[in-house]
């Protein structure tokens, strides 16, 4: 883009040198005449799930998931499939992109037999099979059965077994399968299939998982192996993952980043401020590396919502949404209140300001997104079309009443699963490059499933007229920065924000749009405050910035339906921070709430005749969280 601009400027200069004066006069204005030429303005929001496991992941396979990445992409692209539990499934509408994040282990021998790689041909049996495959027809069938027989009996030639075990030169069958499937389904302009994997660090049951997304294609991805977390080769320390990313970028000349999820199951270790679980310190090195390699956070997913916690944010009546409060991932240790500080995104954004003051870098300056983390290969986040966390909890009437994880200490209950979420990415086009770059500049937002269209710009002079202007977004970029951006130098006045939210045409009306501000005062104390920017149905916003009156509830518990006669189709506001202090670092992010709608549990009751636990939520307010805009006084 920049290169194009430079080129065009050079071209224009060379023209002006040789052409008539009349052209010179108009060239500057004319060059800017077409608003679409050279525009890389992100005008579209592209929806996807950044966290899907298929049957290739050992754990998912154990739960009976027989669907592979190919199936995951096909569902995401809108095709109808049969789920592993035998039920037909289709998404309400296609997604624009997907990251399959399987874990990898051995395999890949059959592919090489077909191809006749040197190590296969060096083996007598291998050569036989290869020739059989080459002949095709009956001979291929016989070769295949012979191979399968040897495989099942574990009587493959020793050399070949060695060759296809982790660590050997030709290992990588599953990784190759993942990469190949992504390359096959990546259709620039139509659908983006990212290459990625999950790094499953979970020391002592404390969830420290990270997903990794590559900007690149198979040519680079196949030159590396994803790192493992199992000793002796692997490590559960994120610093080791950062090293992998560093090496990848340096050696392959590629680009990649990592993002974490489920701080709520880390028992305080996701966002450390003093010590890390691996035994390190939150020091200069840690904050720099974390800020560099983790520009994003998966704030909402099936295993609970991680935006805010009612104990940390007692003044936020919407904070208790999808709260998982029992313990760590395997419930080997129960949750204590003092752990929450290291678990939730809003608190981490605040702690990041304090760490920035202390160490000079904010390690928790991340954008926000949502994903499912499903182990079914099926990226479902809609309440009325929810295929659960694993094949064992695909639609069946008992899934909400059975514990999902159980230990001697407690249980993550089946009804606690949240049909959530997706990520919207603002970009100019649907390609790996454009989406990845938007992700890195944090122009993303997460939702708990609905695809509402949310924009936020922060700057120094937005007016009400800008909101409904037909080039509103262009004004946003011209006068300010989009979500994920940074404002500096206050010039004595308070920043203003232009925020717009349009409902998902296939979901419910909107209740309200809120600004959530966090800041650090001159004594180093951290604060947060919520402002309602726009509320539906003409309700009043009080002087303290809040609309106290709830939007109401139209959900019919007998039929699992709602009526859009409350809430609004669109909500928009220009808002200037009334409590701004130009010496205080701050962040601002938008939360959009839908009117109450049925949860998947209520749909299970109505559609499957499920019985429900008394603590289960039958009605909820789905929501969107934008990446913040940060203000920095320096």
């Amino acid at each position, binding site marked *: 883009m920049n290169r194009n601009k430079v080129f065009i400027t050079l071209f224009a200069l060379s023209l002006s040198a040789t052409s008539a004066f009349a052209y010179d006069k108009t060239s500057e204005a004319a060059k800017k005449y077409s608003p679409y030429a050279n525009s890389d303005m992100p005008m579209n929001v592209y929806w996807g799930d950044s966290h899907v496991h298929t049957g290739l992941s050992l754990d998912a396979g154990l739960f009976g998931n027989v669907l592979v990445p190919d199936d995951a992409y096909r569902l995401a692209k809108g095709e109808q499939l049969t789920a592993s539990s035998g039920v037909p499934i289709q998404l309400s509408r296609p997604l624009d992109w997907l990251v399959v994040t399987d874990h990898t282990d051995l395999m890949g021998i059959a592919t090489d037999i077909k191809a006749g790689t040197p190590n296969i041909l060096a083996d007598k049996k291998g050569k036989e099979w290869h020739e059989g495959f080459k002949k095709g027809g009956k001979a291929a069938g016989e070769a295949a059965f012979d191979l399968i027989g040897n495989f099942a009996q574990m009587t493959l030639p020793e050399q070949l077994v060695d060759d296809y075990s982790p660590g050997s030169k030709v290992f990588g069958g599953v990784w190759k399968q993942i990469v190949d499937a992504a390359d096959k389904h990546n259709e620039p302009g139509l659908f983006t299939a990212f290459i990625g994997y999950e790094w499953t660090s979970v020391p002592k049951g404390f969830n420290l998982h990270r997903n990794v997304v590559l900007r690149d294609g198979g040519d680079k991805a196949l030159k590396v192996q994803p790192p493992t977390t199992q000793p002796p080769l692997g490590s559960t320390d994120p610093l080791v993952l950062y090293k992998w990313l560093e090496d990848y970028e340096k050696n392959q000349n590629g680009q990649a980043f990592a993002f974490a999820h489920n701080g709520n199951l880390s028992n305080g270790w996701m966002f450390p401020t003093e010590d890390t679980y691996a035994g390190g310190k939150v020091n200069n090195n840690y904050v720099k590396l974390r800020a560099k390699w983790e520009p994003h956070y998966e704030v909402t997913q099936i295993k609970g919502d991680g935006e805010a916690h009612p104990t940390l944010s007692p003044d936020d009546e919407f904070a208790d949404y999808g709260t998982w409060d029992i313990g760590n991932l395997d419930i080997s240790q129960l949750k204590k209140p003092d752990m929450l500080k290291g678990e939730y995104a809003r608190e981490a954004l605040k702690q990041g300001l304090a760490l920035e003051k202390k160490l000079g870098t904010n390690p928790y300056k991340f954008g926000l997104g949502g994903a499912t983390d499903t182990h079914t290969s099926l990226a479902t986040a809609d309440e009325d079309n929810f295929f659960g966390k694993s094949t064992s909890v695909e639609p069946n009437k008992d899934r909400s009443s*059975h514990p999902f994880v159980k230990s001697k200490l407690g249980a993550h209950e089946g009804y606690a699963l949240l049909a959530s979420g997706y990520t919207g990415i603002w970009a100019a086009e649907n390609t790996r490059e454009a989406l990845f770059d938007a992700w890195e500049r944090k122009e993303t937002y997460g939702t708990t499933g609905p695809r509402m269209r949310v924009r936020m710009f922060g700057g120094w002079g937005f007016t009400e007229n800008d909101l409904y202007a037909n080039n509103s977004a262009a004004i946003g970029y011209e006068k300010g920065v989009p979500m994920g951006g940074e404002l500096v130098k206050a010039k004595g006045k308070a920043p203003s924000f232009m925020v717009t939210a349009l409902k998902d045409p296939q979901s419910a009306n909107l209740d309200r749009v809120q600004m959530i501000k966090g800041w650090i005062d001159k004594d180093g104390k951290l604060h947060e405050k919520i402002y309602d920017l726009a509320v539906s149905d003409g309700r009043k916003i009080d002087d303290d910035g809040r609309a106290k009156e709830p939007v109401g509830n139209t959900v019919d518990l007998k039929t699992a339906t709602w009526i859009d006669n409350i809430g609004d189709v669109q909500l928009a506001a220009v808002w200037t921070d009334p409590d701004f202090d130009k010496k205080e670092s701050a962040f601002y992010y938008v939360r959009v709430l839908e009117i109450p709608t049925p949860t998947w549990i209520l749909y299970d009751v109505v559609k499957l005749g499920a019985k429900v636990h008394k603590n289960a939520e039958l009605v909820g307010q789905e929501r969107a969280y934008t990446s913040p805009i940060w203000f920095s006084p320096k």
Partner: protein
Amino acid sequence: MMKKLLSDPLIHFLLIAVLYFVAYDSLNPNTNELETIVISSGKIEQINNNFLTRWKRLPNEKELQRAIKGFATKDAYLREAISLGLDKNDPVINSQLHKKMLYLIEDMASAEEPSEQVLQDYYQLNQDKYLGPAIYSFTQMYISTDRPKDELDQLLSTQQERMLKGLAPIGDPSLLQTDFTDATDFHLTRNLGSEFSERLKDKPLNKWFGPIESALGLHYIYLTNHIAAKLLTLENIKQKVLIDWHYQNQKSVQEKYEQQLLEQYKLEVQMPKSKGMLTKKEVKSETSKEPAQ
């Protein structure tokens, strides 16, 4: 006493047994032959590579010996476990073996390439999947329906009058874009709901009409271009059709294989006698657990 003992049939039996064992032993000398654990050169290479990944150098002699011993110990354990039958009925192992079979079938199926004719037939049969997008260009004026009915009716009739006079209708302020240029039906569904593009079909070009309904409210439309969805030619989307064919082929190869597989066995189902068929209620769904990773 001795005589009595010597005539006891039990003693005879024991003596014969002892003689038999002595004879067997001398005829079959204990060779003490051991089973072999082979550490192949491939395995050594693998150990070296593992070491290299972790420590960025090759192991020295002592380290290599330690790794070899470690591998041998593991292998001996494995053999012992298998001889004790510990691999039987292990859900982790069973699931892995099942998965390996599925990989092999998939790989086998992918070896087959369709002829031109087969691909052509598949394309013909699945034409609905190979439609290009319908394309629309139009200007829209949005009318919010979030107002009292009388007021809405009044507003709509005012707009009708404007259109009759050849004037453009005036819409409410909207976050929706006003001009849609070469928008696909996919794009319209995304922004205006699933039925909107359907409602634009067969509408006149270059004049205002409406209102037509979307998921967001009502819209007056000035349509300037409409291109119906067209079947894409096989030449243009051959790669996609080929990928789809492989996907379907793999499914059917798997089905055929499973059928053949079951034909190799006699199925014997032992229903519980007292109850006959289990009812749905009695089949308790398995307690689900969080996947380990």
